[in-house]
């Protein structure tokens, strides 16, 4: 009797889980179906695959839509931001754990405080700053209306520094000491010992940074003035907001915009979980 009872409970559990996963997966399914349908079919809630994917793609690729420019700008800013922020934040987080100084904790607390300030409150001063940079020859490269201006503010984030610091605590100092005795310099310890050991932490940091940068909207929107520097979220916003939006093309654009994030996550999923739970190899 006990066996049947267990089976029933198991069945209920599975039904429940199926239901929840359907709830989670449904929007994605609808998005993919929408990408293959015409705008009026999407409006009609047509739930079967259509044949308009090719047309939708062609609409998207019209030069005035700026989709290709947006995609390549997003790829450039995301890759550069991810690489730079990993380098800067891991070095900072590493130093916060490995080196002692009197001001260290205070400095770190101030850094954490910056996490509490909402972006919208520093938006206007930050904008002013970048507008000023346009007047200085070298800084012009990262002034308003450049991809550099989108990258720079997210290169160093309190969250990533905090994340690297917490994980660096599990890195054994003996290992670093031993390396030092063997004659390795400080840079070498970081790149040859710390980096390989903390690989999963770096992977997690990369995913977090990638996702943030890929979906970043408000700041890039403010600094991008000409269509040539628009990123993908802005292109999507422009596609969806006219009085008569082409929903088929919009869905296709969203599918393409979601793919890289999904790919990056699935490829690094194992490392991501390990990084979040703080495993050291």
């Amino acid at each position: 009797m006990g066996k049947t009872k267990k089976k029933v409970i198991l069945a209920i559990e599975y039904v429940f889980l199926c239901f929840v996963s359907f709830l989670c997966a449904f929007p994605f399914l609808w998005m993919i179906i929408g990408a293959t349908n015409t705008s009026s079919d999407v409006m009609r809630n047509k739930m079967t695959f259509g044949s308009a994917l090719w047309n939708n793609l062609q609409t998207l690729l019209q030069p005035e839509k700026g989709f290709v420019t947006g995609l390549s700008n997003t790829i450039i800013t995301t890759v550069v931001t991810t690489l730079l922020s990993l380098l800067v934040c891991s070095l900072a987080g590493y130093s916060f754990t490995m080196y002692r100084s009197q001001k260290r904790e205070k400095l770190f607390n101030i850094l954490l405080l910056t996490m509490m300030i909402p972006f919208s409150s520093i938006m206007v001063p930050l904008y002013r700053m970048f507008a000023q940079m346009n007047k200085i020859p070298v800084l012009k490269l990262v002034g308003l209306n450049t991809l550099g201006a989108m990258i720079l503010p997210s290169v160093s984030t309190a969250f990533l520094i905090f994340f690297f610091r917490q994980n660096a605590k599990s890195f054994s100092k003996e290992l670093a000491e031993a390396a030092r005795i063997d004659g390795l310099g400080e840079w070498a310890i970081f790149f040859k010992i710390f980096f390989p050991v903390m690989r999963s932490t770096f992977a997690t940091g990369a995913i977090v940074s990638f996702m943030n940068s890929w979906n970043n909207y408000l700041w890039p929107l403010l600094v991008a003035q000409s269509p040539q520097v628009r990123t993908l979220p802005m292109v999507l916003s422009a596609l969806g907001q006219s009085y008569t939006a082409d929903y088929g093309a919009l869905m296709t654009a969203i599918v393409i915009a979601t793919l890289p994030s999904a790919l990056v996550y699935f490829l690094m999923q194992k490392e991501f979980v390990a990084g979040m739970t703080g495993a050291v190899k």
Partner: protein
Amino acid sequence: MRIRKLLALLLAAAAALCLPACGGSTSGSNAGKTADESKTEITAWAWDDNFNVKALRLAKERYEAEHPDVTLTVISQSLNDVVQKLNTAFAAESYDGLPNIVLIEDYRVGGYLDVFPGSLRDLSSIINADDWMPYKLSAFTRDGKIYGVPFDSAVCGMFYRVDFLEQAGYTGEDLNNITWSEYIEIGKKVKEATGVSMLEQTSGDLTLMKILMQSAGTWYVNEDNTSLNIAGNPVIKEAMQVYKDLMDAGIVMNFPGWDEKVRGIQNGDLATIVDGCWISATIKTAEDQSGKWALKPIPRMDHVEGAVNASNVGGSSWYVVDKVANADVAENFLKETFASDTGFLNELVNEIGLFSSHKSDGSFTNYEAQDAFFGNQKIWEDFAAWAELVPQVPYGINTYNIDDIVEEELQTVLQGGDIDAALSAIESRAAQIGQIG
């Protein structure tokens, strides 16, 4: 040593990636200026490829043919993005990269005029006030100075399904210049006879409230555009009562959003639509209903003196950002196109269904077109005639923010709450809103 090489390589790679990114974009933005030194470049922002952006592109063709030394760059982006960027740049007092010409909604422009004085240019010299409907100009007139050039205006009308009203025993004559209480009585009969709802209400959309307020010459604020005019305002009080009577009569169909509303129209779920003239384009997407629709003036409020059977909802206008280089050229562009070229505006009636709020001085021949969809009625001629009646109201600087509050308090009224209390609550909450909406 190898580590140093690695580090150098990494930095070089980052720099290499960065350089084309930054360099490419800066050269991109300046390309127009460097390509041909003799050309003056101006920029304009708008937000709908099929409507205002299309109008800009047509204006550009005309203007550039006359002025080969000027290039106009038209940038299309979403309305929310335009607002966000203007707010930030004006607040930062940084005009770098702002456009010369920008389209702003009439409900929103007061915020820019009153909170950031001096950022938008005085265009009094290129606008002849006598040519335009006064209610349109008042949105962007301050101290007698006109700061904008009208683009579109949404004078209101009541579109109705001839077949449904006939089934309930009404002809078009019965709908001429009626009051809201008469409208509700008709609505009940229509619902009885056909089962179809008389009106729609879309959640988050306070169109009807704004139609009612302007039809009776009042708004959330007084003439000074700042002091609130909500608590004890008899018009808003009656407007809330109209909402409640409509709901209590059970003749209103609720839609969760715009897309559902469009589907409702296409399905034939509604007997009338009371909205701005631009809704005609949406109604016409229901091709199978051609010939079944006609147009009458909106109902008028019963107990308000001076209330008329005409109103306006929304609309937008062109502005010149004063501190951006070449503002003079931008001003001249507007002067020769949207501000004075009635031939062009007449063309836009057919191209994009534009109602510009320019007084019809005989040059708007396209208004006389008979529309088969509306039973050969000359709907634009009617709209133009009703526009003459629209009362002038001050829009203030916070219309959209106050709308949100009104919508919440309206719910308590619909559930039987006291209207006066609701108005006081709206006023005290509205008084706490910050400056920019």
